[in-house]
C-alpha cells in the first residue's frame, strides 16, 4: 500500500546531542520511502556529541526539492527537550502540532551561571495551541529502556503522519537492532497511545 500526498509534509526534530534524534529521523524517512513517497532527510550534527543543539528535518511527498524546510512551514515539530522546543518553535506552522518530551536538559551556559535560564518556559510554551507534552521518559522506562524515549516520541509523531502501520513497522525493523526491537516496538505503541 502506498500513501499519496498532494503536498509536501514537513517534520522538524530538535534536541540535544545524544538523545537519539538522528536515529528517529532515519526511521521516519525510511517509513516515508516504504510508503512510496519521495523523501529528503537533512541534518546538522557537526559538534553534536559535545552537548550542542541538534536539528534534523524530514520532508516527504510526491517530489521533494529543497532539503531545508523554510521557517514556519513544519507541519509537526518534535522536540526532545523543553528549552529546544522554544528555541525552534518558529520552525512550526502557525497552529502546527508541537510534540515535546516533558523534560529539561539545562544548557551548560545556564547551569554554570553564564546565562540566565529561559523565563516563564511553561507559560511561553503553553501559548502555542498545538503544544502537546509527552512523558516520553517514563513511558520508555515502562517499555523497558529509558533510551527508547526517542521512539516513544516517534510513536507520538506517527499519530499525525499519514503512513500506514505497516510502513512504520518495516522501517523500525530495518533500522533498530534485533535485540532492541521488542522494547522499541512497545515504546512506539506507548507514544502513539499517549497522544491518541
Amino acid at each position, binding site marked *: 500500500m502506498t500513501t499519496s500526498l498532494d503536498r509536501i509534509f514537513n517534520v522538524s526534530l530538535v534536541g540535544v546531542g545524544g538523545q537519539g534524534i538522528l536515529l528517529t529521523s532515519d526511521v521516519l524517512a525510511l517509513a516515508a520511502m516504504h510508503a512510496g513517497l519521495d523523501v529528503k532527510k537533512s541534518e546538522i550534527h557537526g559538534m553534536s556529541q559535545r552537548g550542542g543543539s541538534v536539528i534534523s528535518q524530514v520532508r516527504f511527498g510526491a517530489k521533494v526539492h529543497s532539503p531545508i524546510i523554510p521557517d514556519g512551514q513544519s507541519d509537526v515539530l518534535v522536540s526532545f527537550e523543553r528549552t529546544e522546543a522554544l528555541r525552534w518553535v518558529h520552525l512550526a506552522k502557525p497552529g502546527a502540532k508541537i510534540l515535546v518530551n516533558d523534560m529539561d536538559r539545562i544548557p*551548560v551556559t545556564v547551569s554554570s551561571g553564564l546565562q540566565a535560564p529561559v523565563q516563564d518556559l511553561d507559560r511561553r510554551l503553553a501559548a502555542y495551541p498545538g503544544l502537546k507534552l509527552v512523558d516520553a521518559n517514563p513511558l520508555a522506562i515502562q517499555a523497558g529502556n529509558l533510551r527508547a524515549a526517542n521512539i516513544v516520541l516517534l510513536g507520538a509523531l506517527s499519530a499525525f503522519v499519514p503512513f500506514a502501520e505497516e510502513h512504520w513497522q518495516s522501517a523500525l525493523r530495518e533500522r533498530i537492532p534485533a535485540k532492541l526491537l521488542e522494547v522499541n516496538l512497545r515504546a512506539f505503541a506507548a507514544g502513539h497511545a499517549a497522544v491518541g
Partner: protein
Amino acid sequence: MKKLLSANQAIAWAAYRAGCRVAAAYPGTPSTEIMEHVAEFKGAIDCEWSVNEKVAMEIGVGASLAGVRALVAMKHVGLNVAMDPLMTFTYVGAIGGMVIVNADDPSMHSSQNEQDNRSLAKFAKCLLFEPADSQETYDMVTAGFELSEKYQVPVIVRTTTRTAHTSTIVDIGSGERGDVPGIPYVKNAQRNVAVPAHGRLMRFAVEKRSVALRELTETTAFNRAESGAGELGIVASGVAYQYVKEVFPEAPVFKVGLSCPPPIERIRAFAAGVKRLVVIEESDPVLAEQIRAAGIPVVEPQTELRMMELNPARLAALRAELLGTPALEAPKPEAGIPVRPPVLCSGCSHRGPFHILSKLKTTVCGDIGCYTLGSAPPLAAMDTCICMGAAIGAAIGMRKAGLPNQRIAAVMGDSTFFHSGMTGLLDVAYNKIPITVMVFDNRITAMTGHQENPGSGHTLLGEISTQVRVADVARAFGIQRVHEADPYDLAALEKIFLECLDSGEPAVVVVRGPCVLHEKWAGKFINEVDAVKCTACGACFRIGCPAIVRGAAKDPAGKRFQSRIDPQFCTGCNLCAQVCKFGAISPAK
C-alpha cells in the same frame, strides 16, 4: 535497488559499483563518513585513513597511474593540503579513473573558513561535478571514473555539508560490484615523470585536453535546460538548484551539473530565450563571472547570496526583489533562549592542561580539533588557531617576533601532530627554537567522531598496527627535554609545564589520557560538594566542566552561588577537587 542514502553513503556505493580498487582519506566534517562507508566494502576496495590529505591524494595518484580506479576524499581545507600533488597530477593525467571528493562547508558548520573550492578545479584544469542530491552524487561519481579514464583527467566531485548530510532515495541498480579490469601498467617516463622537459610537453597536452573538456561540457546530460514560463531565466548549480525549483517553480532553469569547464555556449543559447538571466550558486560567483566574461549579461541582485548557505527563505527574498512577489512570511524566533555551545566533555583530558596553561599566563598557539574548545571561556586558554598543524609554526614565529611573554606553547592533538605537526616540530629541533610543543594525546581523532590514527594502534579496518609514541618522535628529532604527563594530576602538570616553558630551550610535553567519549571510562567515584565548606568562591566553575552546576545562593544578596555536581555527568576525573582551596569537593559517600 532503491536505498535511502546520504551523499556520503552514495559515494561509497558508487565507488563499489564502479570497480574502484583503492580509496584513501583523512577525516574532516562533512566528508568523514565517506571512508567509513567505503570500509563496508573492504574486501573489494583497499581503503585507509591516510596520515593527511596530501598522502591520500598521492596514494590515489599512484593507484591511478598503476591503472586502477581510485577514490580520495577530504573536506575543503583538506584539498589545500593536497593541492601540490593535484597540480602536477593534472599535467601527468589519470590512467585508472581518479575521483576526488571535496566537501565544502558553506556557513562553516564545522570549519574555520568558507572557501569555495570550485575555483580550485578551474585552477587545476580538472573536471568538476556539483551534485544536488544523493542520486546525482552517485551518478556523478560513477561517470567521474569513466570520464577520468577517457580524458585522462582528475575529476572532482564537490559536495557541501547540506548534500553530504542529506539522505535521499538512490537507485543503485543491481547493487552488485562492477567488473572493471585494471589498465595494464606500462613504464613511461615521458608520461609519468614530471621534469621540466616532460612538463613542457604535458603543458600542451593539458591545453588540448581542455578543448576536449569544453566540448564534453557542451554535450553532457549533466548540464541541461529545463523549460518554463516568464521572462526570468535562472542558471543554478549544486544544492542551490533544489532551492530554485522550490522557490521559482515556474521559471526556466539551466541546471549546471558539470560546472568546470562551464557549458558557456549552451548557457548563451538559454540566455537568448529569456529576458533576464540570474545565476544562483552557493558561495563565490564562480559561474557568474565566467558567464559574464563570455559576454552574456547576468543580473547582479541586491539580495546577498555570496556568504553562508543558501536556503528557500533567502531565495524567496531574491524572488521578491526580481519579480516583486511577497517575501516568505515566517514567525519570529522566541527571544532570550540561552545558547548551547559545544563544550569540552566532563572528564575530558584536555581540561586540566588548559587550566594550567591559563594559570601560567602562557601564550598558546592552538590548532584544529576538540581542544580548540579550550579557547572558549572560562578556560580561554588559546591565542591563535589557523589550520591543521599551524600551532608550531605560529609559535616559532611568535618567538622570533620577540614577544615579551617568555612562555610560548604550541598545542595540538595527536592526530593533528601526525597530520602536519611533525614537520613543524622538526623545525623547532633543527633551528633550536625555545618554545614548548604540547601534544594533547587522547589516542584517537576525536572531533570528527573517533577515527583511528597512527597513535591509536589500529587502522581504518580495525586491524592492530604500529602505535607511534609522540615522545619517541620528539626524541628521534633530537629534542632533549621531552616529558609525558598525566592530564588529571594538576600539581604535576604545573611543575612540568613551568620547567619546560621557562627552560629557554626546545621542549615537548605529551599529555596522555584517552578520550572520555571514546573509551567511555569512568572514575571509581563521583564527586560532591560539601555545602558547609563551600564558600562560593567560583574557582571550580573556572575549569568549565559541564558537570559543575549552580547550587544554592550563598551570600545574602543572592549573587554568588555555591557549586553543585550533577552526578549524571560527573566522571570522577577529580580536577574540581584539586582546584578547590577549601576542601569542599570530595567523593560522594
